[in-house]
């Protein structure tokens, strides 16, 4: 059985993988697949889908909600193949793809004439909570309950953030994008991303004071 220290160490490793800018960079390997896909190689594009579909879905999830995320993600990836001839490698393939996903979601939102970032996330409660699945020996029922409340509070406070801060916060932590990638995708300076992210986290930490 894992000790709390082991679990903490595993979490650190996972975080390091998620946040370390030097994490495995797939962009070079993507380039070869992109080249083949540009010549109509479906297998190559299938491999690109394998690599990036999770992030595309997570990005779509932030913009259009759980109900539409799957459809928007599929639409984005099909569009990516259709327009892959336009990809000029000035940015990483993942960045280009993320931009397509965001534009697809914004088109969908415009069509629906709804707010840019979905606020109604009550459906999230219906999904199984990962906290219940965590094999954290240190966290008893009380601890898990506290964390559930903290997560609910985080969600509520996220909605209070200014739209740009909320967008950057979610792309950073839920879509697990690097700062430079976010900047490139949103076409803003990386300094802006850092500032907005810092403000968002600061505000959330303040609001979540009793849980953190």
């Amino acid at each position, binding site marked *: 059985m894992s000790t709390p220290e082991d679990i*903490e160490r595993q*979490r650190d490793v996972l*975080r390091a993988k998620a*946040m370390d800018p030097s994490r495995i960079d797939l962009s070079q390997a993507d380039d070869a697949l992109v080249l083949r*896909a*540009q010549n*109509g190689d*479906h297998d190559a*594009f*299938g491999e690109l*889908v*394998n690599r990036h*579909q*999770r992030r595309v*879905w*997570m990005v779509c*999830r932030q913009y259009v909600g*759980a109900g539409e*995320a*799957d459809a928007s*993600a*599929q639409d984005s*990836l*099909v569009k990516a*193949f*259709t*327009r*892959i*001839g*336009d990809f*000029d490698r000035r940015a990483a393939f993942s960045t280009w793809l993320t931009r397509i996903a965001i534009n697809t979601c914004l088109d969908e939102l415009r069509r629906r004439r709804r707010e840019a970032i979905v606020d109604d996330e009550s459906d*999230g409660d219906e*999904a*199984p*909570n*990962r*906290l219940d*699945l*965590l094999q954290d020996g240190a966290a008893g029922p009380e601890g898990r309950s506290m*964390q559930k409340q*903290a*997560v609910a509070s*985080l*969600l509520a406070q996220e909605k209070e953030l200014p739209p740009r801060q909320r967008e950057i916060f979610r792309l*950073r*932590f*839920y879509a*697990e994008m690097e*700062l430079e990638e976010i900047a490139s995708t949103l076409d803003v300076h990386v300094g802006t991303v*850092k500032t907005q*992210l*810092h403000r*968002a*986290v*600061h505000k*959330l*930490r303040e609001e*979540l004071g009793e*849980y*953190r």
Partner: protein
Amino acid sequence: MKSHLEEHEITAAVAGLELEATVEEHLGSCVSCRQQVSAMRDVIDARRGDLEAEAPDWERQRQEIMLQLPSMPTIRSSRRRVWARPLLAIAAVLVAAIGLRALWAPAPVVDPGVVSELPVEQILAEVDAMLADDSIPGFELLDQGMDDAVLDNGTS
């Protein structure tokens, strides 16, 4: 060695922003500060876990995407643009040059040595003489008496 990290430093660590070496060092050795960072990240991680639990079956999604793909991507529009732009520029320059040339072209020079083949002066003199002459053929009065009667009647 710092006593404890400032609020903004904890925030930066949570956000995964670049930290100063002293902050990194302190974070490595101070359990209290590290706990503050990890507590917030735990909440964020848990939220991300909730979102991931909603994710579709990736293989099924991939298969559905593959079924929707066209046989070939569209032709590279960027390649077309590369050639189209200079061509359009050249065409615009040509049109402008032709237009300017038409505007600025000097009037055709008439050679003073070239004399008109028509005797213009003579023709004009003949016309003047004809107009001065009342007896233009075909317009003579048929009956001078009738002309006088018309004048007496006061009508024309």
